[in-house]
């Protein structure tokens, strides 16, 4: 809330923060909290409410799940761009994907983009794979992209992006090659869209993905969670990793002090690998289960 906000406004902000945390596990940092009013303006307008006090009053008065969902969606940060952190994507293209190509003798590549927002990260990966298709042709490639925001997943599935979206990070060559004009917007080609399975999912509920992934990206997600939630997410990602998996986090994120599921990767700066001990426990558990 802004400096000088009234007690009732601060109370409303706390209620909405609690709603967001209960539904998503995300906490509202100070930087996001002060944008709360701006973020919620469309919700207030759509529901004929004067201000945040009126919004919280209605939420408390009657269990309106549609309104709750609209509030949560509005408070989530869905900012994303193509090839966000170009250095990381350069490393993916020049080293990590070639490494996975060499090491995955079963010719199966499984990638999970966890917290994919509006899908640009998953499409960027699909573009990199398609641009090196002579290498990957004949492989079974699965890109799973999940996000808690239904609205973000809907856009990701459509593959439709505005001119402003495509010119943030997407090279002109890739735009012409992999996107088609769609009115004033652009739409990812069917080849790209077919490569990715988008799904609305909460990193904490039971609908988690199945099996192990070779490459896991969970970038700019942990920073919204409490330390306990971060550990829980890393444990979840660890459960879906194998000894050769590579985890990539956001530039300001780390596994240090967040449990013992992952350690810094020896070969890829900024990448993480599963702890050997965790992997051994995982294999032993699978043997017992089998």
């Amino acid at each position: 809330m802004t400096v000088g906000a009234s007690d009732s406004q601060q109370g409303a902000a706390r209620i909405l923060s609690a709603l967001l945390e209960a539904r998503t596990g995300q906490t509202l940092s100070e930087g996001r909290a002060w944008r709360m009013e701006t973020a919620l303006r469309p919700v207030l307008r759509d529901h004929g409410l004067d201000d945040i006090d009126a919004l919280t009053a209605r939420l408390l008065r009657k269990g309106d799940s549609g309104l709750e969902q609209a509030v949560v969606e509005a408070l989530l940060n869905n900012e994303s761009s193509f090839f966000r952190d170009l250095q990381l994507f350069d490393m993916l293209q020049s080293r990590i994907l070639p490494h996975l190509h060499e090491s995955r003798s079963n010719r199966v590549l499984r990638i999970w983009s966890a917290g994919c927002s509006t899908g640009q990260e998953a499409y960027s990966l699909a573009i990199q794979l398609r641009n090196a298709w002579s290498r990957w042709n004949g492989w079974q490639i699965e890109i799973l992209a999940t996000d808690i925001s239904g609205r973000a997943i809907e856009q990701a599935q459509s593959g439709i992006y505005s001119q402003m979206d495509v010119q943030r990070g997407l090279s002109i060559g890739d735009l012409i090659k992999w996107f088609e004009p769609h009115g004033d917007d652009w739409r990812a080609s069917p080849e790209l869209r077919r490569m990715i399975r988008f799904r609305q999912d909460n990193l904490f509920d039971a609908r988690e993905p199945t099996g192990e992934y070779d490459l896991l990206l969970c970038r700019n997600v942990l920073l919204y969670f409490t330390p306990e939630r971060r550990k829980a997410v890393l444990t979840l990602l660890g459960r879906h990793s194998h000894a050769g998996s590579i985890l990539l986090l956001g530039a300001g994120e780390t596994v240090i002090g967040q449990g013992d599921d992952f350690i810094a990767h020896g070969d890829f700066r900024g990448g993480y690998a599963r702890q050997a001990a965790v992997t051994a426990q995982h294999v032993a558990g699978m043997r017992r289960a089998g």
Partner: protein
Amino acid sequence: MKNCLVVDDSKVIRKVARHILESLDLSVSEAVDGQDALTQCEAAAPDVVLLDWNMPIMSGMEFLQALSSAKMTARPKIIFCTTENGISHIKAAVDAGADEYVMKPFDRETLESKLSIVGII
């Protein structure tokens, strides 16, 4: 410090571009049309040119054609900057030698992204 030549007949656009580019630690020079830009490029080639499409005297496309036959030690990267987002315009710009393409109005993030793609920052 790398140099960017901003070519646009609009003083406002040049001013906005200069503000953004200087904040990205680039030195900036300005040209008001393609002919002015060509003269400056032949005197001292910049690292990158932010090039408007529609300008009097010599358009952006005419500048690109002239640049290809100009005697220069090194060819600058070209970022075409226009209000046209039709795919035919984009393809025409790429065919004429543009390295990137950006729509007006642009912001800092967009320009930063394009400069990064062409290897300037």
